[in-house]
């Protein structure tokens, strides 16, 4: 139930007046750019002209050759706009493989739709989009677009070679501004030098990239931002939805955000303040107070996405959240902070880039980044992090949505970067114990308990609020065993800073162990079989494991008297830099005890280790399907 809730869309686009008539025939393209590509970006020229903080004109000219149906998505164009951004001009043409003109495109060919996602009550974002419908491949589509922004806090970025299946022949990005304008520029994975020309009229910076081939998508690869080329620019003096300011560091940006967006939104009425003080009456420990008030906030409110005010960056006032009993991430965090203010517990409103992939704010480049807000409460002994959009989240539990990354704390004294807690593979546990009686006909029945902790705490997050019958339905998908029947399912939460979720149930699996004439086959790993990882003949990117975990399974099988063990899988142990696997089977009278421990480490490993990685992962898949075979006694 965690939601992204800032809508800082990055800006696509640029201006240019191209002179000569281009030749868009397909035979002009080098073969190296066609390999593995679904489309080729033949030419892209983006010019961002920052006339003043209140007027930024972006012009883009783009020519894309779409090689096959899968590349159609790259031939499409979508432009987001809102109150502070307008689309001034769009035109385009489509050419066939020989460079002959097929049709022309104008603003009227673009659809104009609300860009508000279904879960959002209100936001004023709209989207203009066009998808070419051409059946003869390849074809080339050329666009020219002009966009005007009335703010310069969020400036267009340059991301050549962004899509692995689109190669780039040439891409150029130019930034123009008044002479002497103070800028900060951050280049990522850019090898050359920008061309800088300063004249009386303006300062001009430009970057070019050429001949970037398409790449194969690779599994277990790192965040593309770590290897893709990008340029980001920030202006010191800015204007944003009518608010002015200046910044050149996280410290200054965080300070501005606090004063311009948050400070005036925190006053709660006297009645409410009294109610809050009453709540913590008699509690002396700040940690206990915070917990009491966090649970109060969770109980009182619900998450509703409403993106209004200052480009969707200003929270609804705390008083209004209290009155309406709902808010988005900004509103709820600001409300929680305001509540803590009443009892003099300091806390910090923190901007984070949320998502399963860990992404830090760049310590070397302050900018309006991030898509979510969380609250940090520094106490004397430890620091508590609060996710405020989830009414069930345990106190102090962030989970994989915002773990282990740099976030910006916006405070009165200035912004600072803080790191959220790490969830290690030792912490992300799933520990399962089960006892199964196998009957003569192969049916299994027994009990099971599982403890989930760390980021695996959230494995059953979806289930916790569901009605019982719905839980049973979902369990059938989770366990995914033919014929399985659940009874007495219980899910309980141990809400703590290291929270865990406990599952206990009774189950029956008719005919789990399959029978053939006198033999019976039993797959020992009943619940937790892993899936294959694709192999690769060539691997270019490092192997990246975003988050590690530890799974332990222990199943005790009670076997029918009529059968005797004929064969059982050998014990297996694998130890690699990526993790380990230990599987043992012990036969003890009529019992068979299966134990499996699997650890996956997080981290980045060299590309050359990919084969070792797939070999490890796929061996586990193989071992997970190991069978024990039983024979009818006396046969």
């Amino acid at each position, binding site marked *: 139930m965690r939601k992204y809730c800032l809508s800082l869309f990055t800006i696509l686009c640029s201006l240019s007046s191209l002179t000569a008539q281009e030749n868009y025939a397909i035979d002009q393209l080098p073969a190296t750019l066609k390999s593995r590509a679904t489309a080729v970006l033949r030419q892209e020229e983006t010019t961002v002209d920052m006339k003043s903080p209140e007027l930024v004109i972006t012009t883009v000219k783009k020519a894309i050759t779409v090689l096959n149906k899968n590349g159609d998505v790259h031939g499409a164009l979508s432009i987001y706009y809102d109150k502070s951004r307008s689309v001034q001009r769009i035109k385009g043409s489509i050419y066939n493989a020989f460079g002959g003109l097929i049709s022309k495109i104008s603003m009227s060919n673009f659809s104009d739709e609300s860009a*508000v996602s279904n879960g959002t009550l*209100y936001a004023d974002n709209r989207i203009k989009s066009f998808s070419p419908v051409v059946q003869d491949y390849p074809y080339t589509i050329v666009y020219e677009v002009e966009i005007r922004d009335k703010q310069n806090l969020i400036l267009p970025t340059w991301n050549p070679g962004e899509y692995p299946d689109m190669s780039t022949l040439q891409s150029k990005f130019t930034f123009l501004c008044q002479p002497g304008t103070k800028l900060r520029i951050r280049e990522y994975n850019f090898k050359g030098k920008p061309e800088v020309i300063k004249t009386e009229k303006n300062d001009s910076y430009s970057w070019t990239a050429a001949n970037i081939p398409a790449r194969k998508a690779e599994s277990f690869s790192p965040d593309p931002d770590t290897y893709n080329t990008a340029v980001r620019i920030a202006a010191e003096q800015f204007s944003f939805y009518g608010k002015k300011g200046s910044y050149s560091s996280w410290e200054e940006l965080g300070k501005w955000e606090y004063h311009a967006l948050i400070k005036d939104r925190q006053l709660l009425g006297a009645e409410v303040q009294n109610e809050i003080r009453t709540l913590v009456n008699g509690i002396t420990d700040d940690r206990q107070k915070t917990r009491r008030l966090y649970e109060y906030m969770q109980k009182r409110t*619900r998450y509703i996405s409403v993106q209004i005010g200052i480009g969707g960056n200003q929270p609804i006032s705390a008083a209004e959240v209290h009155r309406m009993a*709902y808010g988005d991430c900004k509103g709820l965090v600001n409300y929680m902070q305001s509540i803590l203010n009443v009892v003099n517990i300091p806390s910090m409103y923190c901007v984070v880039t949320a998502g399963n992939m860990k992404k830090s704010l760049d310590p070397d480049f302050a900018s309006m980044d991030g898509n979510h807000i969380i609250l940090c409460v520094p106490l004397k002994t430890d620091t508590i992090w609060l996710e405020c959009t989830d009414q069930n989240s345990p106190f102090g539990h962030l989970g994989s949505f915002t773990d282990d990354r740099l976030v910006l704390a916006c405070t009165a004294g200035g912004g600072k970067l803080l790191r959220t807690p790490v969830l290690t593979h030792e912490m992300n546990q799933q520990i399962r114990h089960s006892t199964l009686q196998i009957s003569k006909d192969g049916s299994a029945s027994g009990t099971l308990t599982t403890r989930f902790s760390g980021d695996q705490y959230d494995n059953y997050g979806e289930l916790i609020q569901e009605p019982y019958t719905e839980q049973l339905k979902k369990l*059938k998908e989770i366990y995914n065993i033919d014929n399985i029947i659940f009874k007495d399912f219980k899910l309980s939460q141990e809400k703590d800073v290291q929270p865990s979720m406990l599952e206990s149930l009774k189950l029956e699996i008719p005919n789990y162990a399959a*029978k053939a004439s006198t033999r019976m086959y039993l797959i020992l790993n009943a619940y937790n079989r892993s899936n294959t990882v694709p192999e690769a003949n060539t691997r270019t990117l490092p192997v990246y494991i975003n988050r590690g975990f530890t799974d332990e399974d222990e199943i005790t099988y009670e076997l029918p008297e009529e059968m005797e063990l004929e064969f059982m899988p050998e014990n297996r142990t694998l130890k690699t830099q990526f993790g380990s696997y230990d599987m043992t089977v012990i036969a003890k009278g009529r019992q068979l005890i299966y134990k499996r421990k699997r650890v996956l480490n997080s981290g980045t490993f060299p590309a050359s280790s990919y084969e070792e990685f*797939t070999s490890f992962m796929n061996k586990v898949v193989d071992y997970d399907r190991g069978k024990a075979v039983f024979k009818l006694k006396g046969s």
Partner: protein
Amino acid sequence: MKYFYLLPLLLLTQLATYAQLPNFGFVTHEDMQAKRSLIDSNANAEVQLEYGTARMNFDDNTGSLYIDYEYQAQIKIFNKKGFEHGNIAIYKHIYKDGDMDKLTDVKAVTINYVNNEFVRHELDNSKIFNEKLNKYTSVSKFTLPNLQEGSIVQYSYKLRINYIFNFKTWDFQSDIPKVSSKYVAFIPGLYNYNVVLRGPLKLSSSNGVVANGCMRINGRDINCSKMTYVMDNVPAFIEEDYMTAASNFRAAMYFELSDYMLLDGSKRNVTKTWKDIEYELVKDNRFGSQMKKKDAFKELMPSILKGSTDELGKAKAVYRYISSNIKSNGFIGIYSETVVKKALESHSGNTGDINLALISALTAADLDAEAVVLSTRKNGAINTLFPVLSDFDYVVAKVNIGDKSFLLDASTPMMPFGLLPLHCINGQGRVISLKKPSYWIDLLSSEKDYTRNNMTAKLGDDGKIRGELITYSSGYSGVDKRKAIQKAGSIDEFVEKLDEQKPQYRILAHEIENLDSLDLPLIERYTIEMLGYESMAHPQLFLNPFFMDKIEKNPFNLDERTYPIDLGTAKESRLTMILEVPESFELKDQPRNLNISLANAGGRYLSSTAFEDHKISFSQLLQLSKPIYAPEEYLSLKEFFSRIIQVQKTDILLKKSGK
């Protein structure tokens, strides 16, 4: 909470003045105390009461008719999961002239029970957000304040709809249960609507009385029928897998204007007889006229036919020509959008353009071709009782050769001749002919969905299995495979991906046949190697012969089923393996030879293993013979698959001879 003390009184009076339904605006203790839904104890929220009225009115200023619609609902929120039912969205249609349904009088309130008192929190109307979704739809959204577990939400609004053809559809069923849903429609006697209740649920009551002078036109009072439809204890609608459009099954009342009387007493038909519709379609410049564009193909015909003389050969040549020369622009519809001639020139058109062009071209080749209008699976079922032209959203060609006929869709790529794409397999279609009256035809897939995997291999002394695997795919499987190859970019990239995804196999060589011969099965030949055993030193080896198409998950794993299971097509898949093993091994045990069937020839499964000359011969057959199974057959399908899964878990046991 003091803040709200003044509100209840105010609100009471306000609601009381406009409430038209006893109950609305007031909450009983009984409603408030409800802890769970009596219809479904697992529901997160429930509509306790829902009431709508729609009446036709005449606008003296514009001289046009419109529908006045009022809606009121009371929803009980049982738990936090139910909070989403406190988010309300009211959709408004935008008409061609830019005119839009007009929403007024929105009122909403949350009622909580705190300290033995009803506490009300009214919606602030400045918190109603309007959003234009796209060209055709706008939405007004709001959320109720102060929701708690146990809250009651009430809201009401009025909508003016400037389009009387479909009157106002009423949905009895939604995603939460409803205790009572009541709809009152005032329909002027001059207007005659076809009224259809969709879905398997029945009305609890319905009645009609005369309402005098319910409408005035030019100063004249018109009488109406006041129709009241009630459905009580309506369960939530839950979508299931293998199901056509949800709108076919969800309980709702649909209206379609059939005819109306003018004030002078003359009658105008709107919904027509099939004869009228045929006439209209055949005459329509976007339909019948496009079926007759023979001339467009006159000169091309010799080069299209390339000497084919028999009728079937000619039909195939024409079908291939049209499907490769006019590509779909992604739009569907029964009418030609750009006219056949232009579509042919620009090589692009909608379904209507392409398939009407196909009919013209077939006719130009002296073949007997007709059009079939149908409703796609997504669009829902066709009402076969009376003709409703707007139900249809797709057109295909029917060509009659001798005593056989073939249904053709040239707008969907990669289809074999005579096979309709799955989205067209939906009940019946209406055949529109230029020569004879229209008639119904069953829309069935002409070929079953078929795959066959043959493996011939040898288990070596090094534990490796080497051999050849041949896969045949036809029907929808062939279409899907060809699409997958196209999506991969090339055959080599397709095989590379396949190789990478199956770590147990290594593909040493490959060859793909009939990729472009769409009427023939797609054949993939692979030379493969796989690691069977790390060591052959063991005295016994277990081998699972189900090397492909292994069913790991039962597709029918639920405990019950409400709606028919619609697979769209019959399916068949076969597996054979001949595996030579080292001479020192012999077969000791094997999966049970299974031969099971579904009732009424619904399907069959066979598996058998034999051993001779150091060779294991294994075969498996799975047939699902019916495109649609009744809900009562669900449990036997489940059991059928369950038995297959069990046998697939068992192995062949090889033992070294003499041990």
